């Protein structure tokens, strides 16, 4: 295939990254294959399910339908940034407490989407959380415990 390469520089989880990438390389493949950040998962590879959600400049993005070159000069957050040390992030802790995950495959993308929701709306309600996570598919939980976790995490994070 006839592809061109580009040099990009970006920040991933607080660290500066410089790389040369093929123009057709998706951001998800860049994160998983080039940087080894395999917490970003691929469910449908067409932007429908949201499993590959990451934060680009603070906004949730489906990394399977964004190209790595488009992330040039951007600041990225993946699930690996949530709890770099032993203690989990309050949102992860709330997911754990409420059993807001079963197989865990949608969880990284769901966590980042929920983090965005809470940052936008620290007083998020059940209804707002339910509408907010309707962007991301979860095949296991039926969503209810995720809603519980988001509302409790928001409360924890307000304190």
């Amino acid at each position, binding site marked *: 295939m006839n592809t061109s390469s580009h040099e990009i520089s970006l920040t991933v989880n607080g660290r500066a990254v410089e790389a040369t990438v093929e123009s057709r390389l998706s951001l998800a493949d860049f994160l998983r294959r080039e940087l080894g950040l395999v917490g970003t998962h691929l469910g449908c590879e067409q932007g429908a399910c949201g499993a590959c959600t990451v934060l680009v400049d603070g906004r949730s993005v489906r990394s399977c339908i964004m190209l790595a070159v488009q992330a040039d000069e951007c600041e990225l957050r*993946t699930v690996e940034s949530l709890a770099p040390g032993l203690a989990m992030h309050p949102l992860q802790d709330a997911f754990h407490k409420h059993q807001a995950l079963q197989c865990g*495959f949608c969880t990284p993308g769901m966590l980042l989407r929920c983090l965005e929701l809470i940052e936008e709306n620290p007083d998020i309600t059940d209804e707002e959380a339910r509408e907010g996570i309707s962007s991301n598919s979860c095949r296991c939980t039926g969503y209810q415990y995720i809603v519980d976790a988001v509302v409790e995490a928001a409360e924890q994070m307000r304190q």
Partner: protein
Amino acid sequence: MPTVREHPETLNWVGKSIRRIEDPKFLRGRGNYIDDYSVPNMLEVAIVRSTEPHARIVSIDTSAAEALPGVAAVVTGAAAAEVTDPMPDFGPSPDKHVWRCLAVDKVRYVGEGVAAVAAESRAIAEDAADLVHVEYEPLPPVVDWHDALAEGAPLIHEALGSNVPFHRSFVFGDVEDDYAEADVVVSDVLYWGRSGGQPLETVGAVADYDLGSGMMTIHVNSLTFTSFLFMLAGTLKVPSNKLDMHPHPAGGSFGAKFWEVKTAAIAGMMSKVTGRPVKFMQDRLDNIANGDHHGSDRRYEVSLAALRDGTMLSMKVKVVDNYGAYIQFGVGHHGNSLAQAVGPYRMRSIAYDVTAVLTNKCQQGAYRGFGSEVGNWVLERMVDLMATELDMDPVEIRRKNFIQPDQFPYFIPTGNCYDSGNYEGVLDKTLELADYHGWRRRQAEMRAEGRLVGIGICTCQERSVFSATEFWFWFDQPVGVTSSPESVTLDIDAMGAVTATLYSNASWGNSPETMVAQFAGEELGVDPSEVNVVYAGSNQGLPATGPGGSRFTIMVSGAVEGAANRIKAKAAKIAAHLLEANEDDLEWIDGGFAVRGSPDRRKDLGEIALQAHLFKHSLPDEIDSGLEASFVHDHPYTTLPNADRTDLGVFYPFVGHASHVAVVEVDPDTGKVEFLDYTAVHDCGTCVNPRSVGGQVIGGTVQGLGSTLFEEFVYDGDGVLKTPSFAEYLLPSALDSPALKVGHQETPSPYTPYGIKGGGEAGRMMAPSAICAAIDDAVGIRVRRLPATPERVLDMIEAAED
């Protein structure tokens, strides 16, 4: 009959909603899913998929693909057939509908694999797959069940001589006498559309064939039925003791990874051909079009016979199941239905006629319920129809027919046993939690405003823990396989820390590690959060069957109990020696052995373990070092079918129950079904972790909602798959899903440790019945075809107006 157990009155860990052991790794994005696993020098595979529903393969030109830099091998179906044997197939007469990892000579559905490419990266492999040119000679497609049965229909498999791999009529009890006695017979034609598990993670495998040792090592996210892996070894033409499968957590299954070995076979085959490690990770299109795990696709002609007072006597079922191009599990899905064929009702007899047909669709596999969810829906549809016919309340007709608590163990006409139950208890809890009568009042008010509001109720069974007999009692052979064990090893190290080893790929989104840890906590007096749970490869493994048919929690509870008893037996000898006491005078209490009557004279498990590991020569000669034990737990209650199959024996005996109430409002302009309320009360015996059970119920209900309202693998009349992605195959979102009110009742099983029954398929087994009854009630016309998409609901509203 199995021994009736006495369950302990107080439990320390079973019954507590502890945090799940498996969650921290998933929450940190460190799940080690199969696509996260890579090895040096690894190639990646892409599949060339058939664009034709039914066609002869005239030629395949791989030259352009092979010439692409980075491509290691392009293997056509014909070439694959030289290095592999056909796929394992549990269906009837597998030689007459031969199934291979890649199609040979002809393709039988859109998406079937025609060739495989291995390259230095997935991107290069996909580029190369696009360069493979396949010339097809199209054949007429066969899509619908009636086309498959038509005189002179094109044959999916010529060797079979027809498109019917299986047909049989069963009669359980005196059906004709019961129909003669009946006052009322209602009948209907019902269609259950094809949906599937569609976990967010597809199926993958990393295979590494070592030419030196002849070992075929395959990492997979699908590993069950380890006793049958010799069949996959046969496909790959390696000795059974040279195949070693290693499980990785599955990102969901819902049945869709039940025995999904084609992906492993393709990866293994490509590794053998290239001499390098190979990863094959399905993409979503592979999974939808070629994943071998579509759900049931059935047309029913059914009738129900009752007395005028509502007493149900008998049912006649004639079902045609459109299996697609192959039939890997035979009609085990119908055996599953027959495990709970009469539901919770005292029906005396049932006739069941099943015809399996082959068509140009992807084949069926497993989907949460394995066909029994369809049986539940059909039965509940008919109970509702009978209630309407007799002008009875849908609640009261159910209550009138319930098997009563003092009738257990109860043998249904097919031969299966229901171990225990209290169905009225569940019903009453449901009505209260749902505020059923309050909703009936509010419904009347809303209807007076012209709103299409409906209420539906169902009362359904959930059988759990299949016996292997359900896969062969359909056939005439006198006896098939009868084993379906689960195993565990418990190892107590010198510090008293516990490691539990599991032998199947138990992690599918259920909570196997949490379950094992809670059982180990209960049996050994340790804190579950400190139990380490690991998974063994199959080559050094013990027999295991894995999750499926809501079996894992019960089966592994028996395995942990058995292994813990062996550990305690050895620990008692050591403790007796250390305490200078007689072994018979010791009692196990609070995680150690104490001298009966002298609680201060005790040795904790940790102290005993230290002695067992490090102080061999302080102990009696006959005590070997170490403190570990394994236990293989076989099915607790199986009996064999009789020769003429009028009694199928006991094959699914731990039977839970649930009642759901759905309150819906239908939009008359769009046909959209909105939930105003939803209640689910379940009884799966003793709940090990109530929060987890609740999660299974809610998630299963939402999957049932998907099957009921919009999920369907649609093939058009030409055999073209119209739903190849999540843009067309619609998963329920959070906004489609109701907030459930969940209740539990606990009626313990007398035959399982702690009285547990399986609950993993719950929800999906009930929701379709409750939702359809609610739609009926809202629009005044019966749902007969699933999914009841907005388009179909609009048609119903129009029909009701006419």
